[in-house]
């Protein structure tokens, strides 16, 4: 059990973040908190990929002079993928913020129940 936990600590952390993110997105009534939770969710995914790339004792995938052994570097591909994922995450956040600004201008609030209440009127 302990071995399972310590050996996969990175993944457990990602899983915990994932659950926090999901809870926040689905369970919190405030739209900004939903958005923050969304960022946590994305971080969880990013962390998961980075953890995949990790090797014990390896260094960052930037060439060190004289070090040609592949196993000395962590896998660079997930890092590259996550760069893209971060860009996607930032764009999503940007679009979401733009939406939130418009919602706030119209309703003066970002509490979901209140907004739904006012939309029904």
């Amino acid at each position, binding site marked *: 059990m302990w071995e399972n936990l310590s050996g996969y600590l990175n993944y457990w952390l990602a899983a915990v973040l*994932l659950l926090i993110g*999901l809870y926040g*997105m689905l369970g919190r009534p405030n*739209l900004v908190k*939903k*958005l923050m939770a*969304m960022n946590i*969710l*994305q971080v*969880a*995914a990013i962390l*998961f*990929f980075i953890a*995949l790339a990790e090797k014990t004792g390896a260094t960052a995938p930037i060439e060190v002079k004289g070090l040609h052994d592949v196993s000395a570097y962590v896998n660079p*591909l*997930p890092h590259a*993928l996550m760069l*893209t*994922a971060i860009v*996607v995450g930032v*764009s*999503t956040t940007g*679009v*979401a913020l733009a*939406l*939130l600004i*418009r*919602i706030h201008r*119209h*309703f003066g609030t970002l509490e979901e129940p209140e*907004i*739904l209440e006012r*939309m029904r009127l």
Partner: protein
Amino acid sequence: MTAHLPVLIVVLPLAAAVIVPLISLASAKAAFAVACLTLAAAAVASCKALSHVLAHGALRYELGGWAPPWGIEYVVDPLSGGVAALIALIAVCVVVYAGPQVNGGSSARGGMFHGLFLLLVTGLLGIVLTGDMFNLYVFLEISSLAAYALLASGGIRGTVATFRYLIVGTIAATFYLLGTGYLYALTGTLNMADMAVRLTAVMDTRAYGVAVVLIVIGLAIKAALFPLHGWLPDAYTYAPAPVTGFIAAVMAKVSAYALFRVLYFVTPAEGASAQALMLLGWVSVIAVLAGSILAMAQQDIRRMLAYSSVGQMGYIVLGFALGTPAALIGSLLHLFGHAVMKGCLFLAVGGIRWRTGIYRISDYAGMGRRMPLTMAAFVVAALAMIGLPPTLGFFSKWYLLSGAVEAGAWLFVIALVLSSLLGIVYFFRVFEFAYLKAPEAGQPTPPRQELPLHMLAPILVLTAAVLVFGLLNQQVVGGIIRHALPGALAP
């Protein structure tokens, strides 16, 4: 030239998406013309690629000269080529419908609308053509982001609905991303073809099962499969007409395509994916019925159509789940057919709302006389949705039914028949109002207010397609769809 077609189809609209908003600063008409021409070019390119592929086999393109499995590759096979051609052709119809000023009620300025629309088309075409799991995620997000911006341009209700869609859509995309991560960890590759080979060795691991579950849930949310459909009705209802017309026609369908691609071309046939498909089958039976029942309960015609889409996505996934050749043909034909029919319905309904402000079914009284051609198109497309011959909808239902009968899946058969009957109920309710109810007594009869030609023409083209492709469905099935079936089932 032909060798570059796969990437050209995606890059053309992408480049135009950047240029068009800039041109629109100078001239809205020029921007519109560029958008139209680009999409027409993309449509021609995808049709050409498709015909090449049907004659000579799949077309593969290594992006940036990096050979797969390291580089990203774009693949046009009969399946992806067919869906790409469908997307591009519908996009041409919709962009013409929108026109330079975006009739149909977008608050975004014309140039921005066309730019975002092109970006959306880029994303969808990318999802279809890419042969790389992670690249698919990127295009999924590109299309989603463009869609959020477009959907939000329909007023404040649209904005709130879009935010909720954004939250749910991001969860879906993240699930897909995590699933892809698991698959990558198992196989060390992201290339679909390569992954398909390597997955057979690891298909008994628990990680593989988790990957399949994550990907299926992610894509099922995007495809609005009941009970993960919650985002769809609001998002469809409040968006501008051309946006809903396009998104309702192809967006969920592209996610269904991705589901098909992963479950039939990437993952091994047995094991977790088979179980996932079985589960999807049961879910889709519920989807078919629940979507139709919820559609019956709606007063807003756009919501009615949206819930009907939820049911129709069930049809498509149901065919995937059955997995017999006839059922898969039915699914793919319905993917094609439903795109045309639902696009036509939403464009017609959106046009009616734009012209008269009417969107409640009970206000449709006299619509048959006010907008006779638009309503006639609505009727034809609705009859196709119900599945009456000789429309396209009848034939896709035929294949699904015969697939279900062959497989002895009687519950599916009952669900399909019931869903048609429910479709009769909710569509004939609209017909009754539009044709049989006179407008309120005492009020003057409203004049004829047919849509302008550029809005009417795309609707009529789609209507004609519903009938023509119905009669010619054997050409589509025999010429394209049979070749698009996964290896073991293709002729």
